């Protein structure tokens, strides 16, 4: 069984349980058609459903009363270790610490070979999982490699008789470094010298590719003779150059101690040796001032985290007073503030440099840290430019980091580069998420336009930057092409919520197309490239169609259709390709319709789209996009069937009914989607035209009124959505026409005025939008018509027909204007009458001019006669 099948079973089952048991048999026979397997599956579930009322409703724990098997035989059997027990070669002397899963003991050699005290850490609770064992092995590995006088040593390790793993370590008796400094009342100088020993140990760990990540006073014990010992490399991360993608990359930092954590640890970014530099600086700050770098009011964790990631640390000299403050002012302030910088790359490049500056301070040499440098400005720049610049800057830094480095630094540099690439990929992933997932998630929401607009602007800037860098990366280029397509959709994808930025949309789609064409040159067979190319071609064409540039659009669409045809041939049955193939037929149909009478057969093209979509819809019944497109193609067929020569109003209404049914279903299934509600209202309008044609005037007006209400609500929630404004204008126009049909002229005038008002605003906002400009003319003509013979209507018609040369598309306008002028002339006297007659004559003449070239009596005979008669009448009247 596959997913689609299972979805179908579920759908039928869900429906069947809602109807009475005795009717289910008949229901299943009808709904499953001849598919007996399907019917049997659902029947088996219905039988089970009746018996399964209490099934799985009772907790399985309730029955699990036998403790030993639940907790595992090993666990129950395992006894805790006691003082006096031996572990390996050691005898436990006393417990010195205990955690939730085990304990630490002081122990000594049991074989008496020699006297040695050790610390033994044992895991005692439960059977250790593979995870715990791995962690133990890791710690063993790390400690075994680190042999340094200031780092606690691992001596041994193994498993107890009960399989509990344990570690044997050097036993250290001492005080945490901060307490040590206070109890011994060390001078600033002594403290810095002691601290430099700690730096030496950390530096040694770094050279062995280990970052400690949890440096804090309690992890640095100082023995009686003044030797610091670094403990707890348990959460240390191995900077293994052979294994850059080591899984431990992001994990250990969460076990950090917030007070000593670096900003990058807080924000979850990559942790490097610079993080240890930061933690060390916090410790030194504490040793020298008795405080940590951030003054907190509440002491709550959130406040601390905020301070670490955003606050400015107070100079150490200001954290104390008197003589101490004086000592700290100057070099020590600078050294500490340098090591405490937010951006890792602005700190000391290594612990060694940090320590070196402290040495210079001790011996009176000038320190090397500078207050603010080029890097500071870089940091500012990065903060200002966010994503794009961050990705770019990280790349730059990784390149900088690779130049002029020592052997150790070269290793680090390599790691930094790997990390920078990882960051780059992270940023890219983020961008992709934002562009695709977030956009899709908010696309249909009401009121999301301002957010989407910002997203578009930010994304475009980022994408254009990235496009320059991505020249050599085909994957990235393809991703960019997809992103441009997305941006174009938001700017102006027809019939979808968009910003009404037609020019911007065309530019974005063309950028996507160009990127794909480039890619296709080097790899013409790549299906992904061809797919994205065909999408950008279709998108560009659809914008052009709406702007009535059907000739270039047709070229693009035919190319897209051929690409998709081949894709589908290469992978027959591929759902995505089938969907795309249906979509291109829909677009082609629209294009042919808009290009006016010609050789194309839009109905055949729509039927082809319908065929594909119906079959897709059967396989993916709950797929919103397929359903939406199927409804769209039904609507188109419904529209087309209103016109001769294939006029069939019964068919037209039937297809509109199907379209409305699907769209209403979508709106119910996706209550959050404003787009789905828009589509319902749109269909109501389209159907109203067919209803008017079929003389069902009452229903037509009711549909229009419902649509207007819906669009008013939608635009109210989303005032910057241009597609919705256009829809609203269209709805008022349709309402006006429906009212006019019923001779309700006051309502028709009111609706018409609303429509014209909205369109005027749209045209003012974007004078280059051809569609809006055309619709405004149509709207004015309609208003003139419902106004009757008033001076205002005359002016409106003059506006509608205003153009240098006569244009065929204004034929009806000339006709209406000429007739109206003649009627005005009849009521006028003297010079006024002559003016009206001359103007009427001029309009009849314009009409004749445009009809002249195609004097086909079957088509325009009547209109031509009308114009010729009118002209003659005017001439006769003027002679009088």
């Amino acid at each position: 069984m596959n997913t689609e099948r299972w979805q179908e079973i579920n759908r039928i089952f869900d429906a069947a349980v809602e109807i009475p048991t005795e009717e289910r048999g008949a229901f299943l026979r009808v709904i499953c058609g001849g598919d007996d397997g399907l019917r049997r599956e659902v029947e088996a579930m219905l039988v089970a459903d009746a018996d399964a009322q209490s099934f799985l409703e009772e907790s399985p724990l309730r029955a699990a009363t036998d403790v030993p098997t639940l907790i595992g035989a090993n666990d129950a059997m395992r006894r805790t270790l006691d003082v006096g027990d031996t572990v390996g070669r050691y005898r436990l002397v006393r417990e010195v610490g205990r955690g939730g899963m085990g304990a630490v003991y002081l122990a000594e050699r049991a074989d008496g070979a020699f006297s040695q005290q050790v610390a033994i850490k044992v895991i005692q609770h439960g059977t250790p999982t593979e995870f715990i064992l791995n962690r133990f092995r890791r710690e063993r590995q790390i400690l075994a490699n680190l042999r340094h006088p200031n780092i606690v040593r691992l001596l041994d390790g193994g498993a107890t008789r009960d399989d509990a793993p344990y570690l044997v370590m050097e036993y250290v008796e001492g005080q945490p470094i901060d307490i040590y400094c206070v109890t011994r009342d060390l001078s600033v100088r002594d403290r810095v010298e002691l601290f430099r020993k700690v730096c030496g140990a950390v530096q040694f760990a770094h050279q062995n590719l280990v970052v400690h990540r949890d440096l804090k006073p309690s992890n640095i014990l100082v023995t009686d003779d003044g030797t610091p010992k670094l403990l707890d490399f348990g959460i240390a991360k191995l900077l293994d150059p052979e294994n850059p993608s080591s899984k431990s990359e992001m994990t250990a930092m969460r076990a950090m101690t917030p007070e000593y954590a670096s900003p990058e640890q807080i924000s979850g970014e990559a942790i490097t040796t610079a993080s240890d530099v930061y933690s060390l600086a916090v410790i030194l700050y504490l040793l020298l001032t008795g405080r940590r770098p951030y003054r907190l009011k509440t002491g709550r964790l959130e406040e601390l985290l905020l301070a670490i990631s955003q606050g400015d640390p107070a100079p150490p000299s200001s954290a104390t007073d008197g003589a101490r403050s004086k000592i700290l002012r100057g070099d020590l302030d600078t050294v500490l503030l340098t090591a405490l910088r937010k951006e890792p790359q602005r700190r000391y490049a290594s612990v060694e440099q940090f320590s070196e500056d402290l040495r210079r301070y001790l011996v009176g040499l000038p320190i090397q840290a500078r207050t603010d440098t080029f890097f500071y400005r870089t940091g500012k720049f990065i903060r200002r430019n966010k994503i794009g610049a961050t990705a770019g800057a990280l790349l730059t830094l990784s390149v900088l980091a690779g130049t002029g480095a020592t052997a150790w630094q070269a290793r680090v540099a390599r790691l930094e580069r790997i990390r920078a690439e990882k960051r780059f990929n992270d940023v890219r992933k983020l961008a992709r998420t934002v562009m695709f997932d977030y956009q899709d998630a908010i696309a249909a929401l009401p009121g999301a336009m301002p957010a989407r607009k910002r997203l578009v602007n930010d994304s475009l800037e980022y994408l254009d930057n990235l496009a320059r860098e991505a020249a050599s990366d085909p994957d990235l280029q393809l991703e960019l092409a997809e992103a441009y397509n997305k941006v174009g959709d938001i700017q102006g994808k027809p019939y979808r919520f968009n910003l009404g930025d037609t020019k911007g949309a065309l530019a974005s789609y063309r950028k996507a197309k160009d990127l794909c064409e480039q890619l296709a040159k080097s790899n013409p067979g790549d299906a992904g490239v061809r797919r994205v190319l065909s999408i950008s071609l279709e998108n560009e064409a659809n914008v052009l169609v709406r702007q009535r540039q059907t000739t270039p659009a047709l070229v693009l669409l035919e190319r897209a259709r051929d690409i998709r045809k081949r894709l589908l041939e290469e992978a027959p049955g591929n759902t995505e390709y089938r969907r795309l193939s249906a979509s291109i037929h829909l677009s082609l149909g629209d294009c042919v319709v808009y290009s006016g009478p010609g050789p194309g057969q839009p109905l055949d093209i729509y039927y082809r789209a319908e065929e594909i979509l119906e079959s897709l819809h059967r396989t993916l019944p709950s797929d919103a996009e397929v359903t939406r497109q199927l409804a769209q193609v039904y609507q188109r067929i419904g529209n087309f069937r209103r016109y001769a020569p294939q006029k069939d109003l019964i068919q037209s209404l039937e297809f509109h009914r199907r379209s409305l049914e699907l769209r209403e279903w979508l709106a119910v299934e996706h209550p959050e989607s404003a787009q789905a509600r828009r589509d319902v209202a749109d269909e109501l309008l389209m159907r109203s035209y067919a209803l008017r044609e079929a003389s069902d005037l009452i229903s037509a007006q009711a549909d229009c009124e419902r649509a207007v209400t819906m669009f008013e609500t939608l635009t109210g929630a989303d005032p910057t959505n241009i597609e919705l404004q256009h829809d609203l204008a269209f709805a008022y126009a349709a309402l006006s026409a429906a009212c006019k049909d019923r001779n309700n002229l006051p309502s028709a005038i009111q609706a018409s005025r609303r429509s014209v008002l909205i369109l005027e605003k749209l045209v003012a906002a974007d004078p280059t939008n051809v569609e809006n400009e055309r619709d405004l003319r149509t709207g004015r003509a309609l208003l003139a018509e419902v106004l009757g013979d008033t001076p205002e209507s005359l002016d409106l018609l003059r506006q509608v027909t205003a153009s240098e040369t006569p244009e065929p598309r204004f034929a009806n306008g000339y006709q209406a204007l000429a007739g109206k002028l003649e009627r005005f002339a009849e009521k006028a006297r003297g010079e006024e009458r002559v003016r009206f007659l001359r103007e009427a004559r001029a309009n009849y003449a314009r009409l004749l001019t445009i009809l002249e070239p195609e004097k086909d009596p079957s088509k325009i005979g009547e209109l031509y006669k009308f114009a010729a008669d009118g002209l003659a009448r005017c001439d006769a009247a003027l002679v009088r």
Partner: protein
Amino acid sequence: MNPEKNIFVPESALEVAPDREPVTYLLKNAQAGDRAALDELLPLVYGELRRLAASHLARERADHTLQPTALVHEAYLRMVDQHSADWRNRAHFFGLAAEMMRRILVNHAVSRNAAKRGSGETHIALDEANSFSKARDVNLVRLDEALKRLADLDPEQARIVELRFFAGLSVEEAADVMEISDTTVKRKWRAAKAWLFSQIV
């Protein structure tokens, strides 16, 4: 122990103990899609749930019942820092816990079955004493297998079963955790139950 003289107590390897801070961080990162954080989190949750289940069962008398939902809640309170966690963490945690409870209980059933086979028994129902009806007699091992098949067909549906049955969450709680509607949970739960029942009973 003398507080002044801090004896070396390296605790790192003991961090699998329910340590509130790390779990909260891990949770947040796991939620953000950090696979490594999830890998680290799961054994922690698993260990804690197992420990709680064992200690509860050890205390409970036979006439008491133990609700998995109580276990999951308790584990959550113990492991997650309530101050820095939000409801999303909670939902995510419950999701993980359900998965872990499933593992614990299925492993338990497997070992019990193994023990019974060892002693010559062939019937492998979880608990015969509680088998009032066919429906209650759930074979966890077979349920687990059927659930895996269900997850291939509809992961969401399998998840609902996990949350409802293994973690004992109510319809509303499960809907919260999954961020889907109550109605969807109810609908899918009913179909899943029927199908699973037809598969394993």
